[in-house]
């Protein structure tokens, strides 16, 4: 029975419809996790076909198999070391040349491979006609035209893949030939490499050594330093011959091969009038209409998410709190009852009433925008603004997510290329006022002082993001990176793929946030039951009362706020025994502003800290946390003194 199990890997550029194909193949039998020890996603699924159980591994969308990014490194190693039975190379037919550049690298890895020539419909609309049979001959690998979004060609693709595995047919792909000078040197290095035992094929290692690939250099030098230094000398010779670095020469020549094949296999029908997609692109990136459309869509998104979130959040919490008497009858109202209800159940309720109403619609919209291609246009328009804090356009996406909830925003920082930018972007997103903080701003300052004051706080928040972002950008070592991003053609998003991505993100959120929220609620409930809260508030009073000029009980509310920010307001109402804060002695407009400012910045909530730990480790997460505590307290004190002066 062991023979009936197969592994197929999907590999290809980003935005070629790979995840749509993956969803078609695996349906509901899939799970998304991480590559061991890495923050790169690993999507896997199973399907049954002709008596086989087939494992499908969806590799990250990448443009090359070098060591530019973790994704590329992981993909390369997976293919070379774990040796899937076959690799399906998913190719965007409308950008054939660049996709073939990747195909050639797969061929160089000497892995069994078959091509899914996807998005044939888009190519046709752009006036590109591809002769799949010719392409098959030129590449020496099977090529199946597909339109994954409509499910066309997927059965044939799978059938062909299984056929090849069953027959053990030796597919002889084209050999990627470089120029004569380069080939001579590749041959030399290959000969040296053949002697050593390594998971990559010898010729591949030779090419990569000449290119100066860091990972392979490191691995080979451990076995035989001589090989690496010989390759270095040979690479220098090529550099002297061509006037470009050896890696440039090799990449150029590989692209040359890809270009030749593409030109022979495709026919460009003279472009008719600009397509709909083309016109839409022009309008949405235009300096006037582009920004107007962006502003309008963002406002619309925020408005609808918050209206929907507010409404359903209340509905859900009413529903849950309706169960309180039931739990009280079950566990009593003693210590046990308090811990069960106040600790565990309220923790879950908190998670559910925040997560579902705000995060789900936010994610759905986000993935719609991403899949359609609009997100990359927003990144294009916002690149300049993000550069001011040392990030580039792509960082706008997690920042936007942060307005819903900081947790997915932190996780969303994975789209940045370098570790430095991931951290920088994550730091910035923790300063973005999430839905919970919006509740405080609107519920306190907005309600009792007027909406203009609430808006002012948002402006202050933006200024602080800008200032702290810039500060972090200046202090963190390393160089800023520039935007290099593909803007693929607009297309209709695939609903099922969008919903599935939302689902996986949601489960990820639940796994990170819920345990922490529950443990946190339990701990605070314990403290409450033991009567520790007031002593803690007393300890904090030099800060809260003396420095910030707030009532002493705010110390307690701020402790609760660590769980969820809006609890600061809820607890304030509970402890003051009123929701009309304007009547409270010693809690005037100045105190309201100070309190809100502190609540906004004083700490990332416990779930966000969890997300930070997961992405960046304890040290960095704690550093950000402590920094923000100190910052918020200082800010609050300064604000108090300034506002008192002005009043």
């Amino acid at each position, binding site marked *: 029975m062991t023979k009936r199990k197969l592994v197929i890997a999907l590999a290809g550029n980003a935005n070629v419809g790979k995840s749509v194909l993956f969803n078609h193949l695996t349906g509901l039998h899939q799970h998304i996790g991480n590559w061991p020890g890495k923050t790169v996603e690993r999507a896997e699924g199973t399907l049954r076909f002709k008596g086989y159980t087939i494992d499908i591994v969806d590799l990250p969308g990448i443009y090359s198999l070098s060591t530019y990014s973790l994704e590329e490194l992981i993909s390369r190693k997976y293919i070379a070391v774990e040796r899937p039975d076959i690799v399906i190379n998913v190719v965007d037919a409308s950008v054939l040349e660049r996709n073939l550049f990747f195909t050639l690298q797969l061929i160089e890895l000497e892995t069994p491979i078959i091509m899914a020539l996807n998005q044939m419909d888009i190519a046709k609309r752009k006036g590109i006609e591809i002769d799949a049979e010719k392409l098959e001959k030129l590449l020496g690998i099977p090529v199946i035209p597909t339109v994954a979004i409509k499910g066309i060609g997927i059965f044939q693709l799978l059938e062909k893949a299984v056929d090849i595995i069953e027959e053990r047919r030796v597919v002889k792909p084209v050999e990627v030939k470089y120029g004569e000078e380069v080939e001579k040197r590749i041959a030399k290095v290959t000969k040296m490499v053949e002697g050593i035992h390594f998971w990559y094929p010898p010729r591949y290692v030779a090419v990569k050594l000449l290119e100066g690939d860091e990972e392979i250099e490191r691995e080979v030098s451990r076995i035989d330093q001589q090989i690496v230094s010989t390759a270095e000398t040979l690479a220098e010779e090529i550099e002297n011959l061509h006037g470009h670095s050896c890696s440039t020469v090799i990449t150029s020549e590989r692209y040359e091969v890809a270009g030749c094949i593409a030109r022979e296999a495709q026919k460009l029908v003279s472009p008719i009038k600009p397509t709909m997609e083309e016109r839409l692109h022009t309008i949405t990136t235009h300096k006037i209409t582009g920004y107007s459309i962006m502003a309008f869509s963002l406002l619309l998104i925020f408005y609808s998410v918050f209206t929907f979130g507010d409404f359903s959040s209340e509905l859900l919490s009413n529903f849950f709190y309706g169960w309180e008497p039931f739990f009280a009858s079950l566990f009593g109202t003693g210590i046990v009852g308090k811990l069960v209800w106040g600790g565990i159940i309220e923790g879950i309720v908190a998670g559910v009433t925040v997560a579902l109403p705000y995060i789900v619609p936010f994610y759905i919209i986000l993935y719609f925008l991403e899949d359609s291609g609009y997100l*990359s246009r927003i990144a294009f328009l916002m690149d300049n603004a993000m550069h001011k804090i040392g990030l580039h356009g792509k960082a706008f996406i997690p920042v936007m997510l942060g307005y819903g909830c900081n947790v997915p925003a932190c996780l969303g920082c994975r789209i940045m290329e370098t570790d430095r930018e991931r951290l920088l972007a994550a730091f910035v997103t923790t300063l973005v006022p999430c839905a919970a903080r919006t509740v405080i701003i609107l519920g306190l300052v907005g309600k009792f002082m007027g909406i203009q004051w609430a808006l002012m706080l948002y402006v202050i928040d933006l200024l602080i993001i800008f200032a702290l972002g810039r500060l972090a950008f200046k202090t963190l070592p390393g160089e800023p990176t520039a935007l*290099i991003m593909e803007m693929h053609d607009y297309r209709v998003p695939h609903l099922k793929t969008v919903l599935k991505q939302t689902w996986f993100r949601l489960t990820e959120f639940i796994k990170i946030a819920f345990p922490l929220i529950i443990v946190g609620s339990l701990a605070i409930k314990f403290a409450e039951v033991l009567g520790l809260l007031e002593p803690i508030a007393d300890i904090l009073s030099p800060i809260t009362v003396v420095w910030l000029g707030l009532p002493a009980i705010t110390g307690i509310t701020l402790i609760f706020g660590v769980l969820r920010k809006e609890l600061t307001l809820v607890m304030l109402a509970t402890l003051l025994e009123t929701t009309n804060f304007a009547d409270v002695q010693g809690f005037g407009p100045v105190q309201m502003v100070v309190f809100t400012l502190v609540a906004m910045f004083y700490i990332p909530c416990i779930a966000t800290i969890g997300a930070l730990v997961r992405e960046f480790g304890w040290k960095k997460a704690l550093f950000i946390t402590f920094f923000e505590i100190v910052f918020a307290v200082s800010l609050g004190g300064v604000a108090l003194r300034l506002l008192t002066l002005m009043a």
Partner: protein
Amino acid sequence: MERRSSEELEVPLTALKDGETGILTSIKAGRGRGRGRGWGFEKRLMDMGLTPGTRVTVVKSAPFHGPLEILVRGSRLALGRGMAERIFVEIEKE
């Protein structure tokens, strides 16, 4: 803005007007890190198809010195201005 003189044909990509096309001559990467310096963003650019000899068309640039929108090998890329300044092209003559 870079001034173009009639003799000097090699200009940074940012000197191209909207709709103009150039042939890529070189990428002046930032501070080199010895050997393997080609493995940073220069490598990334090349992987995306920006190799010497390639035709690059500047479609437009985003306002306020924003990124450039370019066409290369049939794909549409957004390129940060700082990066585009280091990419040198020879302007194609009509």
